[in-house]
């Protein structure tokens, strides 16, 4: 794929991947449990965008299906981890702050 669309797709990929990398840095740094989860959540959404880009790039709408599923279920992990954070902190406040 070339032309303007091709170029913008390359830029799009670069940006999305770049944002994932930035999120990864946050994930590594933490410091709070929630920071890491938020970073992971952000990555999930970025993957949806990636799917959209891939669908265009390879002219394959099938990739949108990947995004579709992820958009629906991706947040479940966030919810579960948030619940973990809340509940485990009730048990041990100090511990989860340091996670």
């Amino acid at each position, binding site marked *: 794929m070339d032309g303007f669309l091709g170029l913008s797709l390359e830029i799009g990929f670069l940006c999305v991947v770049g944002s994932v990398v930035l999120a990864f840095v946050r994930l590594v740094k933490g410091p709070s449990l929630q920071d890491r989860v938020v970073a992971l959540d952000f990555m999930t959404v970025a993957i949806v965008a990636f799917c959209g880009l891939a669908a265009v790039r390879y002219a394959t709408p*099938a990739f949108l*299906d*990947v995004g*579709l*599923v992820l958009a*629906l*279920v991706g947040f*479940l992990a966030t*919810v*579960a981890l948030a*619940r973990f954070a809340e509940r485990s902190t009730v048990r041990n406040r100090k511990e989860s702050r340091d996670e």
Partner: protein
Amino acid sequence: MNSIILRAGTRYLAGLLLVFSIYMTLRGHNEPGGGFIGGLTGATGFVLYAIACGTQDARAALRVLPQTIAIWGLGIALAAGLFAALFGDALFTGQWLFIGATEDDKGLPLSSVLVFDIGVYLVVFGSILTLVFAMEEEI
């Protein structure tokens, strides 16, 4: 989980996930999807339900024991394979019925393969819920 927001969202999402999961299952033979993906998605709906409203409510909504669903799924998948015996074919030979088929168009396909995929769906759905409900209750 005593979150009003989550519970309210779950009302829509759980249903949405279920409907979506069936959609994914039925289209699986021709586009990405299928019984696994469907079952996993459907289960996610009830997992969310269980997280938001507790397993008691989720079990009540499901009405049937999840392990029963799973084992029925296995039975259905097996039956889909055994169905071929009626036609003298080998185990898991796909049997197709094309409703309103014409020269060019295959019409509306009904097949043992689809039944198999539904079995797969039920197995995955039931199994994951068996596991998640039990874990939620033990912890």
